[in-house]
C-alpha cells in the first residue's frame, strides 16, 4: 500500500477561534484508496479538521493540498467538484424529498442554475441511482419520502448521496452513531466496499468498529496529532492510553 500516491496532504494546519486553537499545527497525509480513521477524545479537533478540509471553516494558517492542488482559498462547492465529499454527523438529508430525489439532486450534472432548470432525467441518471440505492440497501424505498426512513437508513442515504458524486476523497463524521448492531455490520461492509477505489476518512468513537475497518488510525488530542499507525500500534502507545484512560 505504501506505493500509492498521496491524495490529501495537510501541512502545518492551524485554526483558532478567539485565541483557542482547535487545530494546532497539524500534519496529515492520506494515500489513494486508503481508509483512515481519526479518533480522539471530545474536543480533540476531529470535526474541525473535516470542516477545514471541506471548507466549512477557514484555516488560520497552513495548507491543505488535494491532488497537489491548494484548497485553503477555494470555496466549498469548488472543493466538492474537485472530488471531496463530506458527510455530516447528524444525518443531513432532504426530508421533504423522496429517496430517489435525494439521490437525483446529488447527481453531479446540472449543477448550475440553468443546468438544473433544464436537467433531464435520462437513463444514465436512473441507472446510477439504482446502483447506489442497491449499495445502500434502499432499493425498495426509492419512492418514499426521506423523512420516513429510520435513523440508520438516513445515514446510509447521505452516504449514498455522496457516492452519487463519485468523490475521490470521502469524509464521514461518526457514520454509525445511533445505529443498531446489524446496521453497524452493514455499514462496515459498505465502507470497506466503497473504499475500494477512493480514499476515505472516518471519524469514529466505536473502537470495535474502528478495528474492523481501519487501514491506519490517527489519534488527535487538543488539536494536535498524538499518534498514527495501525490500530494495534496506536492502542499500545502509552501517550494514547494516557489520554483515553488518564486524568
Amino acid at each position, binding site marked *: 500500500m505504501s506505493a500509492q500516491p498521496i491524495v490529501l496532504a495537510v501541512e502545518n494546519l492551524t485554526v483558532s477561534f478567539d485565541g483557542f486553537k482547535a487545530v494546532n499545527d497539524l500534519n496529515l497525509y492520506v494515500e489513494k484508496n486508503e481508509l483512515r480513521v481519526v479518533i480522539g477524545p471530545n474536543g480533540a479537533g476531529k470535526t474541525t479538521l473535516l470542516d477545514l478540509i471541506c471548507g466549512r471553516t477557514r484555516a488560520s494558517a497552513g495548507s491543505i493540498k488535494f491532488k497537489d492542488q491548494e484548497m485553503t482559498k477555494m470555496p466549498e*462547492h469548488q472543493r466538492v467538484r474537485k472530488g471531496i465529499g463530506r458527510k455530516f454527523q447528524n444525518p443531513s438529508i432532504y426530508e421533504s424529498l423522496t429517496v430517489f430525489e435525494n439521490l437525483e439532486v446529488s447527481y453531479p450534472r446540472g449543477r448550475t442554475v440553468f443546468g438544473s432548470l433544464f436537467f433531464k432525467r435520462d437513463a444514465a441518471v436512473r441507472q446510477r441511482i439504482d446502483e447506489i440505492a442497491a449499495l445502500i440497501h434502499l432499493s425498495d424505498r426509492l419512492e*418514499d419520502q426521506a423523512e420516513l426512513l429510520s435513523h440508520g437508513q438516513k445515514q446510509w442515504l447521505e452516504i449514498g448521496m455522496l457516492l452519487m458524486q463519485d468523490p475521490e476523497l470521502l469524509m464521514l463524521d461518526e457514520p454509525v452513531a445511533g445505529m443498531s448492531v446489524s446496521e453497524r455490520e452493514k455499514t462496515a461492509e459498505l465502507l470497506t466496499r466503497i473504499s475500494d477505489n477512493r480514499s476515505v476518512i472516518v471519524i469514529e468513537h466505536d473502537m470495535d468498529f474502528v478495528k474492523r475497518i481501519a487501514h491506519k488510525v490517527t489519534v488527535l488530542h487538543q488539536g494536535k496529532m498524538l499518534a498514527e499507525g495501525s490500530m494495534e500500534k496506536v492502542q499500545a502507545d502509552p501517550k494514547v492510553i494516557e489520554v483515553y484512560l488518564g486524568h
Partner: protein
Amino acid sequence: MNTKLKALWGGYGTVLVLAAVIFILLPLSLDLFRLNLVGKYLTYAFVAVGLVLCWGYGGILSLGQGVFFGLGGYCMAMFLKLEASDPESTKIQSTPGIPDFMDWNQLTELPGFWLPFKSFLFTLFAVPLVPGILAFIIAVAMFKRRVGGVYFAIMTQAFAAVLSILIIGQQGYTGGVNGITDLKTLHGWDIRTDEAKYLLYYINGALLIGVVLLGRFVIGSKFGKLLLALRDREERVRFSGYDVANFKVFIFCLAAMFSAVGGAMFTLQVGFMSPSFVGIVPSIEMVIFTAVGGRMSLVGAVYGSLLVNYGKSYFSETFPELWLFLMGGLFIAVVMLFPNGLAGLSNQWREWRDRRRPKAGGTVTPLTAPPAGATPPPAGKDPLPPVASVGGGR
C-alpha cells in the same frame, strides 16, 4: 389512454380550473366595475406567485416585494404619463410638455432618467429589467455573503422603507405621495374605455396563467427540488457541489420580475401608480396573500390574493373597525394553524380525521404538502430510538 389523461389532469387540472375561473366564470358573473376590481386583485397575484417560489420553496422571505411591484408599475406609469403630457394637452402649464406634477414643482425640463420612457419598447424591457436588476444587486450582495433568514427579511423591509420615502420625498421627479395619476392612453389607445378594460383584464389573466405555468416548470425541474433542499439543508446542498448563492439570486430575481409585471398591469388597469404600493405595509400584506392561499401552491396563491383583497374591500367598506383585527388574525392563523393555507386545508382535514380514528402505526405527517396524487406514505419501519437530535439551534 385513460391513465395518460389522468396524469395530464393531475399536472395541469388546477391550472385549467384557474384559467376557466379567470377567463369564463368571473367575466360572465361580474359587471365591468367588479371585473376591473378583480383584475386589480389579480395583479397582486403575480407577487403572490413569485413569493410561492421564493418563500414557500426557497425559504427566502422577502418583505420588500412592493418595491418590485411598484418599480414595474412606475416604469409603465412613466411611459403613460409622458404620452398624456403632450404639449397640446399641457399648454396651460408654465412649461408645456412635461408631466403636470413636475410643473407644479417648478421643474422646467424633463429629468434625464425620464427620457428613455418616451419609447414603448424601452418601457417594455424596463418593466421587468429595472426591478430585476435591483433585485439582482440586493440578492448578490446578501446571498454571496450568506445573509439569509430574518436578516434578509429585515433588509428587504428597509429597502421598501427607503424607496417609499424616496418617492414621497422627491415629488418633482416622482409625483410624490399622490403618485403618477391621470394616465390616459397607450400609443393613442384609450385605456379608460370599457373595451380596453375588458381587453386588459384578459391580457392580465393570460400573463398570470403564463407566470403560473413558468412557476410550475421551475418547481418541476431539478432546480425546484434543489430549492426545497436549500430551504431545509443549505449546507448539504453546498457540500454537494452547488454554488448556493446563485440559486437564491435567480429565484429572488424571478420573483421580483413576476411582481414587476403585476405592477405594470396594475398601472394599466387602474390608471395610476403611487407609493402606497411600495412601502413596508403593502409589502408585508403581499406575503399574506401567499400565506392564505398556501405558500407551497402557485394556484393557491392566486386564490389567496383574490380572497384577501375581496375581504379587504368588503370589510373596509362595511366594518372598517374590524378589518385590521381580521387581517392581524389572518397573519397569526396562517402561521399557527394553517401553515399551508387554503391549498393545504384538505390535507390537514385528512390528517385530523386520521388522527381521530386510532390506527396502528400512525402515519408520520409530512411538513410540506405532498404533491397532489402522491401515493400515501407506507407505514415506515419504526424509527430507532432518536439520538438526541439537538443542535441546529433556531
